[in-house]
C-alpha cells in the first residue's frame, strides 16, 4: 500500500469485497436492492464507455484519454448521493460522475478529441466543466456554496428580481479532487474558506493512491481525511471501492451541508487501475503486485457478488448488453463529431467581442481565404 498509513484501513465499509453486507456504527446503507442494481448498471456502463474511449485514443481518434477504471464505485456512489439541485464540480477524471449526471457521454470525448476545452453548459446538469489545473475548482466550489448561502440570506430581495434563484430547495456543492491535488495551496485555502463560512460544500477526494507516478504518501503521511479536522470540520475515509458506503457517507455529508451544518471532507480510498492517462506507463513506477491486490477489490465485481443472489444471469446479461450498446453508440457519435470552425478560438473570449478581436478575426479569415483560391 502506498498511502503511508495502516494498510488495512480502507475506511467506512458497508459491503465486503466478497459481496456480503457489513455494519458500521456511524453509517447505514441507504441503497436498497433497486438502488444497488442502478449503481451496478451505471458502473458497468462507465467501465464500458471508459474502455471504448481508451480504444478510440489508441486508434488516434482522441488526443488523450484519462481512464477512470477502478474508481467507478467512488464516482457513482457519490454522484448518486447528490440531488439535482446540488451543484457538482468535477476535476478531470470524473467521467462516470458526468455521465451519470446526465451529460451525454460524447460530450466528454469532445473535449478529449481536442475540439473544445470544456463545452457543456454547467447549468444543464448542475455540473461544472472539467478543471485541469489541480485544485482550482475547489475554490470555485466554495464560492458557489457561498452563493447558495447568500441566496438564502438575500432570498426575499432576490426573488423580487427577475430570473434570479431563490426560494428553491436547499442545495449543497459536491467537489471532486485527487490525492495529489490535496497538496495544492488552492485546496487548502478552500478548506479555510469552507470552515470560516461554514459553507455547504462536500470535498470528495478520490485517493487513488497515485498522482501520475507520485505515491499518495508523498502528499500526506496521515490519511488525507485527517486533514479536515485541522481546519475545523469533519473528515471521513470511506472504502472507495464500496459503492454502498460511498453513497451513504456522501449522502450524509450532503445532508449536513444542506441544513447548514457545514463542510465535510470525504477521502474515498480507491485505486487507479489504469495508467494516469493514455500517455502514461505505470509499469515504470508501480510496485509489482499492487494492481493484482486491487483487482481483487474491483468495485464492480463486488456489487456483482452482492447482487448474485437476487439477480439472475439474464439481468446481468441485459446490463452488459446495455453497457456495450452505450459504448458502441459513443464510438459512432465520437467519430461523427464535426471539427470546429477554423476561427472558433476567437469565440467567447469575451461576452462582447471587442473591435480589435473582430478585426483580428476578419484578417484571420481573409488570410485563410487567400489560400483557398
Amino acid at each position, binding site marked *: 500500500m502506498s498511502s503511508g498509513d495502516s494498510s488495512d484501513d480502507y475506511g467506512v465499509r458497508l459491503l465486503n469485497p466478497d459481496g456480503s453486507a457489513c455494519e458500521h456504527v456511524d453509517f447505514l446503507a441507504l441503497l436498497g436492492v433497486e438502488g444497488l442494481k442502478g449503481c451496478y448498471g451505471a458502473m458497468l456502463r462507465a467501465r464500458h464507455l471508459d474502455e471504448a474511449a481508451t480504444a478510440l485514443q489508441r486508434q488516434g481518434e482522441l488526443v488523450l484519454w484519462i481512464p477512470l477504471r477502478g474508481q467507478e464505485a467512488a464516482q457513482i456512489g457519490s454522484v448518486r448521493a447528490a440531488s439535482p439541485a446540488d*451543484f457538482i464540480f468535477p476535476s478531470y477524471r470524473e467521467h462516470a460522475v458526468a455521465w451519470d449526471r446526465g451529460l451525454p457521454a460524447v460530450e466528454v470525448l469532445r473535449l478529449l478529441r481536442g475540439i*473544445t*476545452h*470544456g*463545452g*457543456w*453548459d*454547467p*447549468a444543464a446538469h448542475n455540473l*461544472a*466543466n472539467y*478543471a485541469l*489545473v489541480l485544485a*482550482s475548482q*475547489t*475554490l*470555485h*466550489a*466554495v*464560492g*458557489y*456554496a*457561498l*452563493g*447558495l*448561502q*447568500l*441566496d438564502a*440570506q*438575500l432570498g426575499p*430581495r*432576490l426573488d423580487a*428580481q427577475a430570473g*434570479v*434563484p431563490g426560494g428553491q430547495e436547499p442545495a449543497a456543492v459536491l467537489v471532486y479532487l485527487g490525492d495529489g491535488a490535496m497538496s495544492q*495551496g*488552492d485546496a487548502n*485555502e*478552500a478548506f*479555510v*474558506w469552507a470552515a*470560516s463560512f461554514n459553507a455547504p460544500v462536500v470535498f470528495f477526494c478520490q485517493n487513488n493512491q497515485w498522482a501520475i507516478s507520485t505515491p499518495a504518501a508523498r502528499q500526506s503521511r496521515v490519511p488525507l481525511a485527517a486533514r479536515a479536522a485541522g481546519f475545523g470540520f469533519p473528515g471521513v475515509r470511506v472504502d472507495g471501492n464500496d459503492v454502498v458506503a460511498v453513497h451513504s457517507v456522501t449522502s450524509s455529508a450532503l445532508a449536513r451541508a444542506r441544513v447548514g451544518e457545514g463542510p465535510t471532507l470525504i477521502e474515498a480510498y480507491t485505486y487507479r487501475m489504469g495508467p494516469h492517462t493514455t500517455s502514461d506507463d505505470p509499469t515504470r513506477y508501480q510496485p509489482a503486485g499492487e494492481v493484482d491486490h486491487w483487482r481483487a477489490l474491483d468495485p464492480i465485481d463486488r456489487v456483482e457478488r452482492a447482487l448474485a443472489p437476487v439477480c439472475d444471469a439474464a439481468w446481468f446479461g441485459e446490463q452488459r448488453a446495455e453497457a456495450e450498446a452505450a459504448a458502441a453508440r459513443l464510438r459512432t457519435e465520437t467519430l461523427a463529431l464535426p471539427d470546429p470552425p477554423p476561427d472558433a478560438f476567437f*469565440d*467567447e*473570449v*469575451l*461576452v*462582447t467581442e*471587442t*473591435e*480589435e*478581436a473582430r478585426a483580428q478575426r476578419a484578417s484571420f479569415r481573409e488570410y485563410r481565404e487567400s489560400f483557398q483560391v
Partner: protein
Amino acid sequence: MTTTRMPRPGTLLVPEARSAAEPAPVSVPLARALGAGLRDAMAADPKVVLLGEDVGRLGGVFRVTEGLQEEFGEARVIDSPLSESGIVGAAIGLAMRGYRPVCEIQFDGFVYPAFDQIVTQLSRLHQRSAGHLRMAVTIRIPYGGGIHAVEHHSESPEAYFAHTPGLRLLTPSTSADAYLLLRQAIACDDPVIFFEPKRRYWERGPLTVPEDPPPLMERARVARPGTDITLIAYGPTVRTCLDAASAAAADGRSVEVVDLRSLAPLDWATLTGSVRRTGRAVVVHEAVVTAGLGAEIAARLTEECFYHLEAPVGRVGGYHAPYPPARLEHEYLPDLDRVLDAVDRAFRY
C-alpha cells in the same frame, strides 16, 4: 471644479444627482468617487457583493469601502480570510451562481498569489464553458507608487494582465471616471481588472453621476488636445503628463494628452487618430518599460502610423529593477522632467 459640496459617506449619489435640476458637480476625492460607485452599484443590484481583506469593518486600508458593510450587511460585504487565490476563486464560484462579485486586492504586490486563478480560470471560463458561464467579476487593485510605502505596495502589474486574453483592464485617472468606469466594470459581464491609481486617491475632481452609467466604452479620452506630440498615459501618470503639457506649452509646444482608461482592449482609433495628427508620441507609465504596455503601444502605433511618425514612439517608465524603497522612488518614478526629456528627444529626430 472646486465646489465644496461633498457627498457624505453612505450618501446615495444617484438620487441626489437626479433630484437636483442641473446640479452643480460635486468635487470629491477619487477614492470617495470609487466608494460612491460601489455603493450605487450595490444599491442598484442586490447581486453585487464585495469581498476582500479588511473591506468590511475597517472599510479597506484605503477606506474605499467605508460604510458599505454597515449599509449592506456582512453577507454582501465580506471580510475574507487572508488568501488572495481564495478571494478570486470564490468570486468565480459566486459568479457561476449569478452574483457580481467585486474583489479588492489590498495592494498591487499581493495579486500574484491570485495570478493562477485570474489567468487560468477567470479569464477563460466563459470560453471554456462555450459561453454558458459569464464571469461578471471585478477585481479592484490599488496600484502604482509614490506613497512612500514598503516593498510590494507600489507596483504596476498591468502588463501581465494585458498579455492575457479574456480580461478587460480599466483604470481611471479622475474622480468622474473612477465612478463611471467602476460602475461600468461591475455592470460588465466580462471579468474586469480595475486598477486604481492609489497616489491619486486623495485628489479631488468633479463628479456628476449619470442617470444610468453608459455601457462599457473602451474609449480613451483626450485629456488635453494638442497638435505637436501625443502623450499617452493612464491612471497615475495622466496628471504627470497634463503637468508636462502645461510646462511644454510655455515653451510653445502644443502637447496632446490621451488618457487610455481602457488598457485592454486599447482604443487604437483614438491613438492612431492623434498620432497621425501630431506625428510624435511618448507613452508614459510607472511599470517597468521592458515588455510593458508601452512596448505594445509603440509597436502597434509604428505599424499603423509608419509614415506619419517623425520619431520613434518614446517610452517613459520604470527602469529594469524592482520598484525601489521609498527614499528612492522619486528617482524611479516617471515625473514631469522625464516626460519633458522624452518630448525633447522626440523633437530632436
